[in-house]
């Protein structure tokens, strides 16, 4: 006779699963994370999660939050979309993110700009150097052609399908899933415009971002669209976040360039007027 034939049996069965630990899961509270970054108090952690290859996560984070993404095994690829949590029609604009700083490649000090001339997030540190702001993420069609399937719950989920699910959980929809940036799998542009895939910098690479406004953060961990490997290859991504303060006057980032200074001024102007 089945142990779950009664409500009591089903309840016992469900409750017996509590406390199971797997690699790809959130840790709650985040302060229970076993290994806070150096110099960070466990109590300041606000997000601790590992996202498996072919999966996604989403979170709203406060202004000033520090967010660290780590490629644990060397084959993660973190596709990121960020929105102003107060008005999500303001979102990452990848064109302005490369055009305004006069730089196509993401690295330490690079701002992730919104379509409103403001800084949504700043790249504080980068030990990987293999990133991309031009190719976006994978579509279901592309993954069907590459791997035979691109459905979110299939064996080779497309980044757009996962980012769409993440967006839907914030009341957003297909129109909000604009071009994304990706971390840990690089590309380079030749003189003739041709793209070369440079792949991963290896296990342990990390990127640290600072939220300059309250953000909706969507992350899909899927192979880069130009990853040439025949098999769908993607390894776990670690996400840690902790409390902090937004970039302020006096910080070298504030005056790193005339464009950066005006972007921070615009961001502070918005936050002051809005009262956030």
């Amino acid at each position: 006779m089945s142990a779950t034939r009664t409500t009591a049996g089903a309840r016992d069965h469900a409750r017996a699963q509590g406390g199971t630990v797997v690699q790809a899961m959130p840790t709650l509270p985040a302060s229970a994370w076993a290994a806070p970054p150096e110099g960070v108090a466990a109590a300041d952690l606000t997000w601790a999660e590992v996202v498996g290859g072919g999966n996604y996560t989403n979170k709203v984070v406060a202004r000033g939050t520090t967010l660290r993404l780590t490629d644990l095994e060397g084959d993660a690829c973190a596709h990121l979309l960020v929105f102003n949590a107060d008005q999500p029609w303001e979102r990452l604009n990848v064109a302005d993110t490369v055009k305004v700083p006069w730089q196509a490649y993401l690295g330490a000090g690079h701002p992730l700009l919104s379509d409103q001339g403001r800084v949504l997030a700043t790249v504080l540190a980068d030990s990987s150097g293999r990133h991309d702001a031009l190719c976006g993420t994978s579509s279901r069609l592309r993954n069907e052609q590459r791997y035979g399937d691109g459905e979110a719950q299939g064996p080779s989920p497309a980044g757009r399908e996962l980012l769409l699910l993440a967006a839907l959980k914030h009341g957003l929809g297909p129109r909000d899933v604009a071009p994304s940036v990706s971390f840990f799998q690089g590309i380079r542009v030749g003189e003739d415009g041709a793209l070369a895939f440079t792949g991963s910098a290896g296990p342990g690479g990390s990127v640290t971002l600072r939220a300059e406004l309250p953000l909706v953060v969507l992350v899909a961990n899927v192979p880069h669209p130009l990853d040439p490997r025949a098999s769908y290859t993607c390894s776990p991504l670690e996400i840690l976040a902790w409390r902090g303060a937004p970039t302020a006057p006096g910080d070298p980032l504030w005056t790193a360039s005339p464009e950066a200074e005006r972007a921070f001024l615009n961001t502070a102007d918005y936050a002051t007027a809005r009262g956030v």
Partner: protein
Amino acid sequence: MSATSVVDGTVTSDDVVPARAPWSAVVPAGHVLSIVDLGGNQAVDCLLYHAHDTSERYSAADTIAAQGNIFLTTGSVLRSCEGRALMTVVADDVGRHDTIGGACSKESNTLRYGHHTRHQHACVENFLREGAKWGLGKRDLVSNINWYMNVPVEADGTLGIVDGLSAPGLTVALRAEVDTLVLVSNCPQVNNPCNGFDPTPVRMIVTDPR
């Protein structure tokens, strides 16, 4: 039949878009849109939408990734966010066009040039106002195409809008693969070389080649 139209057939519309102005039209599947740079070096900012479901729209990223190159020219398939073909570049007198530089906006102008440009006209103003005629809004604006704009990327990643490669009368022609809503801003920017610091009119010719 216009001398500057690159395909034979019946011209179904022929518009001159004034300097700094927007333009839009649905180009039916199989028809060809020819964009003529009348004055030379005039950036034509362009977005594409599936006419029957505008949530499927041009994706610079999918287009770049699929062709493995950042420049658009003859043979480039202009793909949607779902990876499907919306239009194909069937002729190009220039050789390369941009799709990484995005559109100018009043907001980004403050970053690039200073807050004194905050009240100058910009492409996003044209996209928003013209798109509203079709029920489109702020959330529908994504990275666009810049016909006739020249944005090289150097070895260290430095990129920028530099002097154009176009000249008066040069044409790029796009065949619609599905019924496609084409939204255009004839770029009003005067703070960088994308329009030769002098915005000029462009001509939009739609031809039914059958």
